[in-house]
């Protein structure tokens, strides 16, 4: 099966890279799915979970990451997800995210609430 190369990079580190058959991300105009051979694309990402269906060397499976803002760019069968902050779902501390969500709710901090919510959704898989 055809595969595309994915690089998920945060501002200060490379979060994940490998082969995938499908990447679903949330742009400002809705969810977008990219499969191998997609037309060159450059989009603005919104805070939300990114789902990567891995294949090939990376093994069949799913990688979910919480991405806070950033860009998706696809060209030459190479997909880059650029985000200021990006975390893989298994890096996320659920309890901490829950606490952050509570705190954000009580402080009425919409941005922080959204961040915590995205993290939790990336872990639980409820999109």
């Amino acid at each position: 099966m055809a595969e595309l190369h994915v690089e998920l990079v945060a501002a200060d580190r490379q979060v994940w890279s490998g082969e995938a058959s499908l990447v679903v991300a949330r742009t400002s105009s809705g969810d977008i799915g990219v499969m191998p051979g997609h037309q060159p694309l450059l989009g603005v990402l919104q805070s939300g979970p990114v789902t990567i269906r891995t294949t090939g060397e990376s093994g069949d499976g799913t990688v979910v990451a919480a991405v806070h803002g950033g860009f998706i760019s696809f060209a030459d069968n190479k997909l880059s997800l650029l985000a200021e902050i990006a975390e893989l779902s298994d890096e996320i501390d659920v309890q901490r995210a829950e606490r952050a969500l509570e705190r954000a709710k009580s402080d009425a901090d919409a941005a922080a609430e959204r961040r915590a919510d995205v993290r939790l959704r990336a872990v639980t898989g409820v999109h």
Partner: protein
Amino acid sequence: MGAKLRVYKRRIRSVTATKKITKAMEMIAASRVVKAQRQVAASTPYASELTRAVTAVATGSNTQHPLTTETEKPTRAALLLITSDRGLAGGYSSNVVKAADQLTERLKAEGKEVDVYIVGRKGVAYYNFRERKVVESWTGFTDSPTYADAKAVAAPLITAVQQDTAEGGVDELHIVYTEFVSMMTQSAIDNRLLPLSLDETAESEDTSKGEILPLFDFEPSAEDVLDALLPRYVESRIYNALLQAAASKHAATRRAMKSATDNAEEIIKSLSRLANAARQAEITQEISEIVGGSAALADATAGSD
């Protein structure tokens, strides 16, 4: 112990103490250089991907954006100078400040006003002492900058660029920092961030040379993408500059402390030679005094016989 010898011994002790300190600083700086270098390397994928994306939009669309088009007659430029908070790094701060001065001169000669923004206490002190105007300054994070610091620095600059020049905005954005070439070489350089010159972005991205960039599909639209992309681009370039400046600072400190340690060793060596000579002189003098004394005594007893 004679007075002279005592003075030498005291000086040797004090130089030895200084040497211990500079040696410790050298080693701390050496370990920090490695860490800073690693940070630079870790931030590179983001920066190069972002540069690629910016190049793609700027070349792949006919969008006219204030951040990519050159103004007919630029009248004001912003200059971001990145220095360090602490000294003891040889010519590190003065070199980068000098580079900023040269750039200021050049911009003024081109008829532009220069708004100065400074990172690092050394640069702030230099400008304050000369009572030059500084628009905004940041201190306290030059040793290990984070992305949040870069964002904080970039925010007022981006606002200034987006503003109209008549209302206090700027037409150009320059950045002066110390580039980390290698462990031994760091050079102060100036760089124009905005408006984007596409040759530069293409040059910095080696793989894009000679390669035709594909036609991109923009989501939601080319203008929106560019709007969102350029501030991030500025932030990431500033972040990269901060990291390189930090690595350069540590490398400069290491070198300065290494030569301080070497000098201390040299001083200790020459002082111990002097101390040895003083001790020998003292012994010789004592012997000649004893010999002289016993001779006088022998003469006296011989005389009384």
